[in-house]
């Protein structure tokens, strides 16, 4: 019979949770990171560095508010520069969190359990970083509320035929729903922290946040329904968000942007970069906090496979862009592609192809997927590649469009760079705080993976 063979094959893969764990050890191991007395020195150093970078962001934002967006490198014809590159990059990174927490939940992929909380937090912080850029790019960010439809004395309303207003709704809905999904997932774990915290303040704060959760079967029943419905709602939401982000480009007539392949190609790129970022963050964290039992090689292997698959979709997108530029017969489109291949930004383009298409092919090899340093390096390369992709899409298309008389060149100014680096500081600072004060792995979901969690039916 085939069953033993299948069993053996399944056993040959590393498990999603190391053997020997009970409800007790899972709970204690994960909550200890939060409840331990004293803060590890590594955390303090890491947080201090991130905090300094965050101050660089705040300084740059202050300078921007005083002097205006002229301190950036943007010009005519390149009106979109680092701000939109970074916006798309960050929001794409966020997508992996929702994919892991919602889509893999609906597909009953148990391995998602130990990375979903952490990936959802990453989503929130990445979307927070992303949201900064379009708002700052407004020029008068203090009037950002004009973007929302509300009755005002000017008698004006938003223009709903513009993709930019779709973006406002998509990103704000995405942030709200991700926040709720993350918080609902946290409630039972906050109750655990409330019951186990040794300090009065801890019991008080976690107690207020847990809202009196007591693990009643009736509550769990409705909780599971709500959680599944949220997953079902987040799944089309995450696809819609990057689709709408791609509409910002695709609905225009600019060569290189006006393409029907943009929505799927953007969504795949988002997942690609998001998984790369989850990997970049998960590898040091599991090492530092000794969480190898919960974040096993199986997780890293699966994430590498997702990266490989979405990377191939992205590569297909690059091929189709080139093919359509030739096949479409539009001289502006074919010029745009030739300008990408051999124009002033050709080095960046070929670096992008190397980072996103050539190097990730090493993930086909099992030995690479089993090597932590190799995976870490590949994930960093993909992060860089995906940033370059957005740079190429935005800058190359804008700098030489229809009329040679209005061509120009673009490069980021010192403030462009300081804001980009600073937003990484903001992201890391939030992540460090999250790791210190909230359970980074979903405790209650890990309990369901423990062998004793299944109800055994007694034969009467």
């Amino acid at each position, binding site marked *: 019979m085939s069953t033993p063979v299948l069993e053996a094959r399944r056993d040959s893969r590393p498990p999603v949770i190391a053997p020997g764990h*009970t*409800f*007790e050890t899972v*709970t204690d191991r994960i909550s200890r990171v939060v409840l331990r007395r004293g803060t590890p020195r590594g955390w303090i150093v890491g947080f201090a560095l991130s905090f300094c970078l965050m101050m660089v962001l705040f300084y740059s934002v202050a300078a921007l508010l005083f002097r205006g967006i002229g301190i950036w490198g943007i010009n005519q014809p390149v009106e979109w520069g680092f701000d939109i590159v970074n916006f798309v990059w960050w929001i794409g990174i966020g997508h992996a969190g929702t994919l892991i927490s919602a889509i893999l939940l609906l597909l009953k992929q148990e391995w998602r359990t130990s990375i979903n909380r952490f990936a959802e937090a990453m989503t929130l912080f990445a979307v927070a970083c992303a949201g900064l850029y379009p708002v700052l790019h407004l020029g008068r960010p203090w009037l950002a509320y004009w973007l929302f*439809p509300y009755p005002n004395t000017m008698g*004006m*309303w*938003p223009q*709903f*035929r513009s*993709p930019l*207003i*779709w973006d406002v*709704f*998509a990103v704000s*809905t995405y942030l*709200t*729903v991700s926040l*709720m*999904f993350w*918080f*609902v997932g946290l409630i*039972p774990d906050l*109750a*655990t922290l409330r*019951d*186990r915290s040794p300090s009065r303040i801890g019991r008080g704060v976690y107690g207020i946040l847990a*809202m*009196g*959760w*007591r*693990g*009643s*079967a*009736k*509550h*769990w*029943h*409705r*909780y*599971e*329904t*709500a959680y599944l*419905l*949220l997953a079902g*709602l*987040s799944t*089309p*939401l995450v696809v*819609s968000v990057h689709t709408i982000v791609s*509409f910002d480009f695709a609905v225009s007539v600019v060569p290189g942007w006006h393409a029907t392949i943009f929505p799927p190609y953007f969504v795949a790129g988002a997942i690609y970069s998001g998984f790369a970022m989850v990997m970049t963050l998960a590898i040091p964290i599991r090492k530092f906090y000794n969480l190898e039992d919960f974040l096993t090689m199986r997780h890293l292997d699966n994430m590498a496979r997702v990266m490989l698959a979405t990377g191939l979709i992205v590569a297909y997108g690059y091929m189709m862009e080139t093919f359509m530029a030739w096949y479409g017969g539009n001289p502006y489109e074919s010029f745009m592609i030739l300008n990408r291949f051999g124009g002033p930004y050709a080095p960046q383009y070929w670096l992008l192809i190397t980072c996103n298409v050539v190097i990730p092919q090493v993930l086909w090899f099992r030995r690479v997927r089993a090597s932590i340093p190799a995976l870490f390096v590949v994930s960093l390369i993909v992060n860089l590649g995906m940033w370059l992709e957005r740079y190429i899409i935005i800058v190359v298309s804008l700098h030489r469009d229809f009329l040679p008389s209005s061509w120009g060149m673009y490069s980021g100014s010192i403030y462009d760079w300081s804001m980009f680096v600073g937003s990484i500081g903001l992201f890391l600072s939030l992540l460090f705080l999250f790791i210190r004060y909230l359970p980074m792995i979903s405790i*209650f*979901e890990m*309990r*369901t993976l423990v062998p*004793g*969690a299944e*109800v*055994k039916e*007694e034969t009467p």
Partner: protein
Amino acid sequence: MKRPPIYGLLAEFDTPTELVTAVRKARAAGYRVMDAYSPFPIEELAEALHFHDRRLSMIVLGGGITGGLVGYLLQYWTSVVEYPLNIGGRPLHSWPSFIPVTFETTVLFAALSAVLGMLALNGLPMPYHPVFNVPRFALASRDQFFLCIEAVDPHFDREITRRFLERLDPQSIAEVAH
């Protein structure tokens, strides 16, 4: 109605299987007003308690439909009635470009009603609940499983119910003060 002197009796079990068996036996013995507490969701537990609540799905459906209507009507009203603008000669009611926002408001309202509906139906936030008076109940969020038969149950009797629970072989039994 006279308030019973205690909230109920709380029995503690080590495994989910024991808890589910205990709930089934308590049902069979005629107890109806009871609740089970576990550190993670157990599908069989709601079944054993004969607990079914379909209201949340209906609330979410209602929220989604409301969100879709609100989103679309907002765009229709602002673009056609209140603030008509001629954009490239397109009709004022250019419905295809209203779809993305309609979709987003649908999801937003549905998700909000899922979360708020779940909390409201569960009666959360709840600052006080009697089961927390039992010190061992702190383990309900860690590794122990509890069954509470409440004193308002018509079959409840301090002595008889205690003897019944003892026969289920629990780790501990405690009276829950109000």
